């Protein structure tokens, strides 16, 4: 959750809207861009929307820094067709990867953890046919997210304890992976002990697996959801039209 309390309109969208729009946008970029201009325009549109919604657009663009190397490689590989270099297919590939990255990071920026879970829980509902309970799956994910920082702290604590007892931690990657092994046993033991206590704590608070549960957070559709579906509909039709008539 962002503590700056960013009230951009994108954040007000229903989690289902956010999820569906994000998926459609990524599919659109991946499969309907034959031409670099189309890919470029989709990127541009995304950035304009961010700007209009008063999202932190600059920060979003700066985050591209993380994948500059990937963009370069993809551009080079796609650019070489046979023996000559085609600048347009190079650009197309770059804008596609960039668009997917921007969409995904915008999605995680405008969604809280609860909203992500809410959406994925709904996506998992069809799994009921195979005997999985989407409720349980969602709760498992909540617990996983909840305990991630706890385990990171634990690993750090045990690592420091081992260094204090004379274990040497090397800097390079392979050596540090090997060094990680001795940490695994105590961390796993701790995890099992924790999970037993957590199961007890959940039971005391009335948790019974597979029993219907109430819901603390519910999300209603508001007018912005309808606007966004409408806009997305227009873009999708344009893109498909362009795809067919090209």
């Amino acid at each position, binding site marked *: 959750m962002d503590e700056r309390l960013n009230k951009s309109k994108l954040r007000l969208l229903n989690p289902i809207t956010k999820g569906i729009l994000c998926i459609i946008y990524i599919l659109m970029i991946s499969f309907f861009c034959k031409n670099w201009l189309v890919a470029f325009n989709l990127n541009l549109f995304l950035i304009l929307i961010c700007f209009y919604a008063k999202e932190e657009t600059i920060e979003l663009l700066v985050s591209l820094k993380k994948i500059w190397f990937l963009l370069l490689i993809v551009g080079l590989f796609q650019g070489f067709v046979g023996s000559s270099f085609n600048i347009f297919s190079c650009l197309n590939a770059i804008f596609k990867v960039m668009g997917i990255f921007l969409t995904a990071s915008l999605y995680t920026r405008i969604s809280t953890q609860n909203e992500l879970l809410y959406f994925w829980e709904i996506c998992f509902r069809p799994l009921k046919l195979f005997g999985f309970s989407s409720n349980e799956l969602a709760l498992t994910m*909540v617990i996983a997210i*909840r305990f991630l920082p706890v385990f990171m702290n634990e690993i750090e604590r045990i690592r420091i304890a081992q260094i204090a007892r004379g274990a040497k931690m090397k800097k390079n990657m392979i050596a540090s992976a090997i060094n990680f092994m001795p940490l695994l046993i105590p961390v796993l033991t701790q995890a099992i002990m924790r999970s037993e206590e957590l199961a007890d704590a959940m039971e005391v608070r009335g948790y019974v697996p597979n029993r219907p549960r109430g819901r603390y957070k519910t999300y209603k559709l508001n007018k912005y959801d309808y606007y966004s579906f409408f806009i997305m509909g227009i873009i999708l039709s344009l893109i498909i039209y362009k795809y067919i008539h090209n």
Partner: protein
Amino acid sequence: MILFDRVSFCYNEKETSFILKGVSFSLQKGIINGLIGKNGCGKSTLARLIVGLLKPTEGEIQFKEENEDPNAYYFSGMIFQNPDNQIVGTTIGDDIAFGLENLNLPTENIEQLVVKAASLFGFEKMLDMPVSKLSGGQKQMLCIASVLALEPSWIVFDEPTSHLDPWARIEFWNIINYLVDNSNIGIIVISQLPEDIIHFGHISVLNEGCIIFNDSYDVFASLNQPPEGIDFPENIKLQRLLNN
């Protein structure tokens, strides 16, 4: 009031080593009930029996209220040692809501009860704050808020102060004293620490499967010999030295 009526318990059916051997005693509301005893004597087991995580092998545990409603449903909550191991939600609001969601209440009720419980601890403006950003003491408070949201008639605290720093301990005891004075919730605290024992109003000592002492703090402090398996806290020892 909680009444233990000849309660026996062993973990394994085949085993003959009983953790509790026909224990009978009672605990009252309106006072802090302390449960002490040496390591492994079965304090946590007793706590689990009270909250219903375990069922007595023999005997029974009864809950009685003054103006009794025979159909009343008694819920007992429990606070475990490590706050980190009992927080289920990723945010403060989610964790307080967890127990209420289990009761399958409608959303509006859950929201109201969450705010009510959160405001006891000043959490009402922080409902969306991730749990990972809380200090140890705040996590403990969150655990208590989450149990209080369920309106229990009893709460058992199993070594609640062992993960807290001294300042958080003071805060913890303030909360407990507040609950004893201002609510109808029965309080049982399991602790080994001498500085906790001075907060108890009533003390029960468990040793080798039996309750060997069950009386008020004053009677405990005036015993000639400490009950088997434990030692007097420093302040009682000091008092005696001064008196001699």
